[in-house]
């Protein structure tokens, strides 16, 4: 069952990787089934990577793996290497408890979904920031100064926010305050798991804009995990598509959106309501994604795939290089262009968005 997606390294490799993931796998039953199935990936320093997958595709497992924070009793194997700028590489999975503790938040920080559940309702926001700084032996005064700057970057009034309790803030404000909190120790990498899922679209889109400003200002590397492909397409430099606990396609955002080379990615693009596509043409993906305990043999997508052949049913496909830095784990990626035509291709691209007069 275990597959090796490392043979063709070119498709996912980075020039200056800040994190290298090799064969990361998570199992809850001693290897009989995997909820993250031997994923390899490199994260370029300073990039924004969008990881897209449906519920139960293993995308949160990938996020947790980056911090070696897979919920117990899950067992994580593989190799995850963090390469801080100008320092020796660190193998995250072999860190001692204390080192791992300081790596989290100070080097790699994470924003979970549902900000409302991430704060302690009995503490005001200032206490949250102070506790975090204290737990990591940071200078509290300096740290609070940084917190204020971050809050301002996120269009929040620092004094008002720091003196508030979580319930006194709207969902959008809580989520932004949480992003500020996650960045208060000046990490290099920010991993966000559905950071905007519970918010309305306007706030989601506003937060995305702010994230892209933060990325530039603080030179962050970001991983943005979501089920909403069009949402992250506006932010990410590169995208990785997950299906059934494996990465099925990876490439530059433009390549993924305009030249997707995996039938699943193409079906996903076609299933998304979109103001640009003609109204009549949305198509849901037939069937359901598999559960870890009854993964199909071969390519996990084959029961739903119009291109599936005997090969797909027996052998897990490796990455095929579509172009430089664009890989698709599909034997028939060339045929997918004709077999699964993209709906949004034919639509006029310039008649949309904010209508100016």
């Amino acid at each position, binding site marked *: 069952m275990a597959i090796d997606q490392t043979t063709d390294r070119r498709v996912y490799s980075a020039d200056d990787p800040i994190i290298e993931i090799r064969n990361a796998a998570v199992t809850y039953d001693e290897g009989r089934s995997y909820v993250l199935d031997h994923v390899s990936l490199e994260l370029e320093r300073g990039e924004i990577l969008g990881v897209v997958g449906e519920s139960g595709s293993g995308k949160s497992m990938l996020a947790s793996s980056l911090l070696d924070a897979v919920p117990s009793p899950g067992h994580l194997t593989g190799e995850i290497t963090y390469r801080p700028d100008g320092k020796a590489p660190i193998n995250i999975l072999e860190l001692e408890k204390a080192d791992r503790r300081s790596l989290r938040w100070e080097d790699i920080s994470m924003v979970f979904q549902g900000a409302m559940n991430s704060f302690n309702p009995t503490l005001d926001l200032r206490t949250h920031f102070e506790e975090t700084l204290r737990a990591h032996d940071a200078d509290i005064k300096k740290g609070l100064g940084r917190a204020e700057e971050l809050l301002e970057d996120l269009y929040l009034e620092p004094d008002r926010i720091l003196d508030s309790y979580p319930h006194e803030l709207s969902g959008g404000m809580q989520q932004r305050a949480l992003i500020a909190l996650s960045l208060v120790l000046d990490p290099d990498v920010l991993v966000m798991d559905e950071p905007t899922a519970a918010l309305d679209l306007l706030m989601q889109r506003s937060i995305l804009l702010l994230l892209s400003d933060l990325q530039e200002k603080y030179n962050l590397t970001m991983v943005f995990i979501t089920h909403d492909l069009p949402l992250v397409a506006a932010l990410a430099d590169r995208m990785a598509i997950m299906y059934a606990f494996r990465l099925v396609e990876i490439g530059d955002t433009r390549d993924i959106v305009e030249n997707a080379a995996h039938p699943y990615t193409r079906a996903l693009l076609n299933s998304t*309501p979109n*103001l640009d596509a003609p109204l009549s043409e*949305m*198509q*849901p993906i037939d069937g359901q994604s598999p559960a870890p305990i009854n993964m199909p043999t071969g390519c996990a997508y084959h029961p739903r795939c119009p291109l599936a052949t005997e090969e797909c049913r027996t052998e897990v496909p490796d990455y095929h290089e579509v172009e430089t830095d664009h890989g698709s784990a599909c034997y028939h990626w060339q045929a997918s262009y004709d077999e699964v035509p993209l709906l949004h291709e034919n639509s006029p691209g310039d008649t949309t*968005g904010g209508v100016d007069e």
Partner: protein
Amino acid sequence: MSDNPLISLEDIEVHFTNENLLNFDEPETVHAVDGVSLDIEENDIVSLVGESGCGKTTLGKTAIGLQRPTGGSVTYRGEDIWAVRDGTATTETEWEDIRTSLQIIHQDPGASLNPNRRIVSILSEPLRQVNPELSRSEKRSRIYSLLERVGMNPPQDFAERYPHQLSGGEQQRVALCRALLMNPDVILADEAISALDVSLRVEMMDLMLDLQDEFDTSYIFISHDLSNARYFSGHGGGKIGVMYLGELVEVGPAEDMINDPQHPYTNVLRWATPDLALRGTGEPPMRKIDVPDPVDPPSGCRFHTRCPKATEACRQETPSDYQHGEQTVACFREDENHEYWDSPELTD
């Protein structure tokens, strides 16, 4: 039959007052809905879109009689439903019948299904109410055929499960079945697809649209996502209404609202809807990110604090409704002769 719309909302106002016993200050009043008029016809689809807290759910609940308005009237086939409720109307119509005709699907399907009961028992409840004469086996066969219709095969298997044994999409289908078994005239779908994966939303909307024809029902579809509202209303030939801080700022046919939005706020929502054109996000067409406090809504046009086109006139005066083709727009920009055009621009 009369020419009355199925449901007619007249100048609806819903204010929530928070009276605190220990606090002798003025009680806080949240203006959840203010002065909204809207008609829902037979077999109609009306989508309400807007940000969190804009009053779309409150308006939806008011339309189906779950929330009593503090002002204005709600009529169902020409009868004032709260007059019927209070027994002050001179009519044969029973409150029970009205209540039965107006159903709701909630946002979180998991929380709206009783975790201790099997699907078959959850779905027997509406049948017991509407068709008490049915025998046990007739009820079962009706439930099975509906489960099969919504794609839950084999129905005998699904019927014996508990809600937690279903996926989110399946739970939402059960909630839809439960509403349909009441033979309703209107179903309020309150963010009914928001909790589902993006890729499952189209499927759920298609199902709801197919069943609309079979069950002859109208939908009030609440969403914060303009592209979903467009898909749903567009396919059903319905309307989209845009709400901002308790007011309906623009309403019109789905495709017109998407292709030719008139109100600056509709344009903001248009901007916020992700698409695949990859133009980059650009600057938002608004001046502030956060919504003002609904306890103390801004004067004049409530959107003036964020609107990129606002002038001093917008702060002073509340725009009335203007007609633009089939769209109704509450913005001075529709009136060429309004003093708005000579008024200084707001920039703060």
